């Protein structure tokens, strides 16, 4: 029907009298050009409106049609007369005779010459939107070295074997190698010794743990709800799903589809539904007096932004309030993407408060599920009473008898949580929500209605549903014709191994982002990734097997002079380890690490007072047994008071997606490693080990042992000498002689060395 109407208008336009055409060319065209098209053209669609074709003017922008033939109340006329809310052009007003001419034009039925009838199609020449083009090359090294040659640089030699095994172990499994593993590798003279090592590491379940933590940064995963109340939430099954998927080497296309829309797959399994927790990791707010719809909208907007950063390498958030200032993404297209993610059955009104955080997937029998619902209500009730009571308190809350009682009640409840697991998931509403453009990014200001669709700058979806849904979006993201997903993903994987990507702005491949330093290399990796069926282990192997990766990291004068940021990789980069990996390393070298995989998050010791900054005080009951020594990725992440050992070493705060961690270097980090009880305990455990395992050795022998344990290498003479002097001074200062104390002091020094927290 709409098409039919358009056709009539077009036909009418063709039939315009020459006098009308002359009127347009003489009076209207220059007026539109000087006053409108600067902001409203096919290349600059402010508010979704183009004023450079008749069709576009009739179609209009976010507020609907700009002009209707013959209608004196057309939006365009209201805007230029400035008698309504919309005043155009901004900051000034057309002369009365100009306004009269526009009125006349509308009255005449918007006559235009033929070339002004049809909307022009936008086409981008920006590199990232062009199809992936596979260059002729044997692999990574050829392409890296080609660039180096252009810059007159030579690659660095391969790192020594000890450095190599430490590097590749920390990168692939996030744990340093044992003394035995180092000895074996150094002694292995077979030509494929390194490849065997890489294969062993890729097959280790710890590979999945390491890659899972990288992915959780993108997923903004946390164990609590965020905002004010920040209660614990049920989501760890999602984390374990990622762990299984990555260890099983699930292809990235499937990995994407299940996380986006596992629930919409035919005969979806529980696992596929659990996977949709990805986009449920957004913080949720349910403090008293809020408008639930506002925070639901925030969450959906975040999902759009996250999808942009993680898959498309686009800053879609820029198009939430207005058209993207640089990239070909209109505000309308933002809300078309928003529409895909806008139908989840989440709470949007006060009346449904008690269902906050729905939908869940319950992983138990119907009775268990019912018991859990009952328990839920009871917890809500006590938490509510605690909050109410707290509001009346003015004295030291910890001493208030009623509060103590309420907290005890809550603790008892929490201890008796019914043994049935559930997890936050996506579930589609039976009746879709209305989707519309939020004018100025404000959900209370409705613009024109939109339907789910993908941005026009990209190839279209293939065979989508009549009204495309999340599953269609997911399939489109990993369609091989999509020019960005493979590039963006491989760029991020590359970043894991060199500290920065081939495109340094790893979440912005748009016009304001950096250009790739080795564009051919990026395209080669992307095409290889897709050609290999989106298998990830294969790509990790391909990179760590390269000579480029295996280079020494020593700074080189000749490189610094030409390429101060080492963009072209004439050497490896030294990288400070991630927050979790520093502690994991300490646990490994002291022999304390628990290798248990998955399960509920754990509560390792926390410095006293670290979590008493929040409004609702959350108990941090230190885990017992091996759970005290689990890998950092399993540490319970409380958004409003995250473990200082994580945050201080730049773990993301998990409010929005994090595609690259900052690596800061601060005195607070030094205080943790020097003084925290946990690290003191690690140093003690190390001492015990050195004393036991080196019982038959002298001090120098014990030192070598300690060095190999912590840094996987033997000390140099100068280092040994310095540490021996320290050991002697320690012993001399002791009032009560204790070898354990003396070697604990040595352990503290080793665990604080730059080398310990760095991947060479």
């Amino acid at each position, binding site marked *: 029907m709409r098409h039919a109407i358009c056709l009539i208008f077009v036909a009418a336009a063709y039939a315009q009298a020459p006098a009308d055409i002359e009127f347009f060319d003489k009076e209207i065209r220059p007026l539109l050009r000087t006053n409108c098209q600067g902001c409203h053209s096919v290349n600059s669609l402010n508010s979704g409106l183009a004023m450079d074709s008749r069709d576009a003017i009739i179609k209009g922008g976010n507020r609907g049609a700009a002009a209707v033939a013959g209608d004196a109340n057309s939006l365009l006329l209201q805007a230029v007369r400035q008698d309504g809310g919309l005043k155009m052009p901004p900051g000034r007003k057309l002369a009365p005779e100009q306004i009269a001419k526009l009125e006349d034009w509308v009255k005449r039925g918007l006559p235009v010459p033929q070339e002004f009838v049809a909307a022009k199609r936008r086409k981008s020449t920006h590199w990232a939107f062009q199809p992936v083009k596979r260059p002729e090359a044997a692999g990574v090294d050829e392409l890296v070295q080609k660039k180096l040659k252009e810059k007159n640089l030579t690659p660095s030699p391969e790192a020594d074997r000890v450095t190599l095994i430490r590097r590749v172990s920390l990168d692939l499994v996030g744990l340093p190698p044992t003394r035995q593993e180092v000895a074996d590798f150094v002694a292995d003279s077979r030509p494929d010794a390194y490849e065997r090592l890489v294969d062993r590491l890729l097959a280790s379940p710890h590979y999945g743990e390491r890659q899972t933590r990288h992915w959780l940064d993108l997923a903004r995963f946390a164990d609590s709800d965020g905002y004010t109340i920040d209660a614990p939430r049920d989501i760890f099954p999602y984390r374990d799903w990622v762990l299984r998927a990555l260890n099983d080497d699930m292809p990235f296309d499937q990995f994407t589809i299940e996380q986006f829309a596992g629930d919409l797959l035919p005969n979806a399994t529980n696992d596929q539904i659990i996977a949709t927790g990805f986009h449920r990791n957004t913080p949720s707010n349910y403090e008293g007096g809020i408008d639930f719809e506002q925070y639901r909208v925030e969450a959906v907007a975040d999902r759009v932004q996250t999808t942009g950063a993680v898959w498309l390498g686009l800053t879609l958030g820029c198009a939430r309030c207005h058209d993207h200032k640089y990239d070909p993404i209109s505000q309308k297209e933002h809300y078309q993407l928003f529409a895909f993610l806008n139908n989840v059955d989440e709470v949007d009104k006060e009346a449904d408060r008690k269902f906050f955080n729905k939908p869940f997937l319950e992983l138990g029998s119907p009775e268990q599920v019912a018991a859990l619902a009952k328990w839920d209500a009871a917890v809500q009730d006590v938490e509510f009473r605690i909050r109410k009571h707290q509001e009346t308190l003015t004295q030291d809350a910890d001493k208030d008898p009623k509060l103590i009682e309420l907290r005890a009640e809550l603790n008892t409840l929490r201890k008796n949580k019914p043994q049935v697991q559930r997890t936050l998931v996506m579930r589609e509403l039976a009746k879709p929500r209305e989707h519309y453009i939020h004018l100025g990014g404000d959900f209370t200001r409705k613009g024109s209605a939109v339907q789910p669709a993908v941005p026009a700058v990209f190839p279209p979806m293939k065979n989508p549903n009549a009204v495309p849904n999340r599953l269609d979006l997911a399939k489109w993201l990993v369609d091989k014709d999509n020019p960005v997903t493979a590039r963006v993903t491989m760029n991020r994987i590359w970043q894991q191994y060199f500290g920065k990507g081939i495109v340094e702005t790893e979440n912005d491949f748009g016009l304001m982002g950096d250009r790739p330093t080795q564009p051919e290399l990026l395209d080669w990796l992307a095409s290889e990734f897709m050609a290999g069926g989106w298998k990830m282990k294969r790509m990790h192997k391909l990179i760590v097997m390269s000579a480029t990766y295996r280079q020494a990291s020593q700074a080189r004068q000749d490189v610094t002079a030409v390429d101060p940021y080492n963009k072209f990789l004439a050497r490896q980069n030294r990288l400070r380890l991630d927050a979790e990996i520093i502690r994991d390393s300490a646990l490994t070298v002291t022999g304390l690490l628990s290798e248990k995989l998955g399960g509920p998050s754990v509560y390792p010791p926390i410095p006293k007072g670290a979590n008493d900054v929040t409004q609702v005080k959350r108990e941090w009951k230190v885990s017992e047994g091996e759970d005290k020594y689990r890998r950092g990725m399993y540490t319970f992440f409380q*958004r*409003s008071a995250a473990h200082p050992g994580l945050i201080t070493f730049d773990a993301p705060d998990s409010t929005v997606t994090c595609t690259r961690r900052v690596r800061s270097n601060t005195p607070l980090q030094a*205080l943790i490693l020097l003084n925290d009880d946990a690290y003191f305990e690690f140093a003690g455990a190390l001492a015990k080990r050195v004393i036991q395992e080196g019982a038959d050795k002298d001090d120098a022998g014990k030192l070598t042992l300690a060095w190999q344990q912590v840094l996987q290498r033997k000390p140099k003479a100068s280092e040994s000498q310095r540490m021996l002097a320290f050991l002697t001074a320690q012993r001399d200062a002791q009032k009560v002689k204790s070898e354990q104390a003396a070697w604990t002091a040595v352990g503290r020094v080793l665990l604080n060395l730059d080398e310990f927290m760095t991947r060479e």
Partner: protein
Amino acid sequence: MQPEDKYLLKRTRRHLFRECGFGIGKAALASLMTDKLLAQVNGKHHASKVDRVIFLFMAGAPTQLELFDYKPELVKWDGKTTPESFLKGKRFAFMDTFAKEPPKLLGTRRTFKQAGGNGMWFSDLVPHLSTVADDIAMVHGVSTENFNHGPAKLFTNTGSVRTGRPSIGSWVTYGIGSESKNLPGFVVLQSGPRGPRGGAALWGSGFLPSSYQGVPFRSAGDPILDLSNPEGVDAEQQRRTLETIRDLNKMELEETGDAEISTRIDQYEMAYRMQTSGPELIDFKQESKETLEMYGAEPGKASYANNCLLARRLVERGVRFVQLYHTDWDHHDDITKPLDRVCGEVDRPTAALIKDLKQRGLLDRTLVVWSGEFGRTPMGEVREKGKIGRNHHIDAFSLFMAGGGVKPGAVVGGTDEFGFSPTGGHINVHDIQATILHLLGIDHLKLTYRFQGRDFRLTDVAGNVVKPLLS
């Protein structure tokens, strides 16, 4: 620290300036404490009026109508149903209750008096503050964007109601560094019965490097987490340990040539200085009896009074941004005794802080800001029979400032006869943020950081310096 910065660092300082121009932050060095010279040369856009800020955050939202914004007309209308015209187009928290019972106006029960040369109004709840009327500038009719505590606190601190943006103290230390070599540049102190809603996000660094986060100082135990040596490690052993770490790190630096190692060596030295200066900082024994009395501070006790005194000691030691949170202003159900109590806790130490800074000559180069996240409604709220309180109000609340560049005794902005809406020009929290930055020598439009493709700033897409506030 970004890799680029490291390389630049290793080169000469002249190099650094040339390459970064005066681009703010690039050279603010991702450390908590930054070289004074560097900060001065690098960060400022114009001459500053102050060097440091003490932000007294009254968490929970104080009732301006009981403290500073005197409304005799409201007293006359006490108990009458609120005229529809005043509610139209406004959004309030807990609005669902309005349908059940239309809200009634509530006149204050407090006695108001004028003080100072310009006749600033103060109620009997804040007698001490009235004595500094000629030192402070009062702002009425300030508006904010969200009527819930958590988001509104975020808005005041980060310019956005969403989590994930840098807080004002982070922006400032990112922009112009800090003058303290022994203490973090951005320190957070807390008092009151519980932590503020929003928690660490209120002083988080958002997408800025984590080194710009506010560092909470605890009022009991170690002021900073892990500041004391582990048990059984004495000062001598700690010094030896640090020297050994330094020497071994130096050997590694020789070997690899990685400038990051020299940064690490510096950071360990700073950590050690923090360890030695921390206990001195919180030792109130150096304070005279008169000073302690003026604040109402008691050594060893966790209180707002102690924190005010600590704030003065922090700025004396060059800390750039000190933020105090005092919770417990959320008086929905009762504005009698609970309000007496919290005013009793806050009134005297706040006035003492201003006087103390002034008598020590510090007020000239310090900015003190006293504010909540929003104000309270001219309508009463009855949650419990026989008691009356006030609801959240975001359109017109009061705050005050004092210090260098602030016009002493000024009364800026105003509100209508009931205190519903501002009269005259609108002053939003973004304008207050722009003004704070302005006084520090920073143009709020130029202090930006690129994240996810956009140049973000504290004032988002708004903010105008409140000129009538300036001297």
